[in-house]
């Protein structure tokens, strides 16, 4: 049994960036969720960017993960943006009937950061 993949979480300004480069297992996802929650409280970040441009395959569990992470970060007053979703992944999620709820999406990292900046401006701390 392989060890749990820890996905590195980078901090840029007050945004946290998690770039997912591996095929996700369920427990990797749970680990990411925990790590993110801890990191947000530790840093007081106001935004989270999940970069999934390298992810080819998703299932319903991982699809739900995005919504869960977003809901969790909302509790810490941080917005979540999922960036770089591939067409195949988008089609799969739609076919599975999953909506991402509150999660914002963007085509690439740059646009994702722009959305977060806009959201931050709208609700200044």
């Amino acid at each position, binding site marked *: 049994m392989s060890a749990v993949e820890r996905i590195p979480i980078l901090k840029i300004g007050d945004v946290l960036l998690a770039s997912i480069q591996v095929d996700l297992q369920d427990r990797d996802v749970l680990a990411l969720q925990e790590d993110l929650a801890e990191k947000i409280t530790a840093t007081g970040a106001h935004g989270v960017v999940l970069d999934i441009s390298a992810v080819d395959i998703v299932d319903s569990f991982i699809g739900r993960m995005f919504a869960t992470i977003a809901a969790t970060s909302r509790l810490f007053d941080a917005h979540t943006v*999922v*960036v770089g*979703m*591939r*067409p195949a*992944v*988008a*089609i799969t*999620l*739609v*076919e599975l009937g999953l*909506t*991402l709820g509150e999660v*914002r*999406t*963007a*085509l*690439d990292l740059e*646009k*994702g950061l722009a959305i977060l900046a806009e959201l931050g401006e709208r609700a200044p701390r």
Partner: protein
Amino acid sequence: MTIDTGRSDNLADLLRTNTAALTARWVEVAAATLRGRLTTAELERELAELYNALLAGVDSGSRDVAAEPYAELRALLTDMSRRRARTGFSPSETAVTVYALKQAVFELIDNDAVEGGLREVVAFSRLLDAFGLQTFESYAKAREEVIDEQAEQLLELTTPVVKLWDGVLAVPLVGTLDSARTQVVMEKLLEALVTTGAAHAIIDITGVLAVDTQVAQHLLKTVMAARLMGAECTISGIRPHIAQTIVALGIEFGDITTKSSLADALRHALRRSGVEFTAAERRR
């Protein structure tokens, strides 16, 4: 030496000694059925090739069409049949070209009676029949390939993704939408979103004559998928009677933006991306 091989040699001899006369007659008979759609020179070249391959096969003593000695002839026939299928000859015309050799040979046998007679003729006739059938089969296969190719091209052709503005893509749909086509539209649009990085997409269905629940479902899915990828998708150009159908079928478009014309949709997309419109001042 067995009687069989003796007979084979007999036929082979006949074919070999009369090569020139037989090919000439073959070309003549075949040309009559083609009514000038192929030049005589072309036909001569084609048939001379076939004749040589046939002679090589008959020379080997085998009378089995599927046997190794006829491999070259089979390949040549398949080739010819394919070529003709693509240039619009009917399968009978192709087969008749092969059968024309029969006539040429039979005339020769009538002229100077060959030893071994009837059996020889029947065996040869059966051989040519089989080759004629083969041209038929390859003809049908080639036609099917052409049809498949065209269907694919049609799918590709009818679903262009065009760039209307920086960051605004449009897919003008024309004709009948079915599930296969909407699937292609979905995939092409999403791919284009990734490659261009456009944040807005417009699906224009002005040219679509009918929408059923399944198609509407696919359109909705496309919009949802584009949204998941971070792009906004607008549907424009719904015809009045399609709008009525959609309402009658109870299809919910939810919070998806729909505009009556492509122009409106473009204006909407540009506004969303922060472009302002001002009428240019008239100088006069």
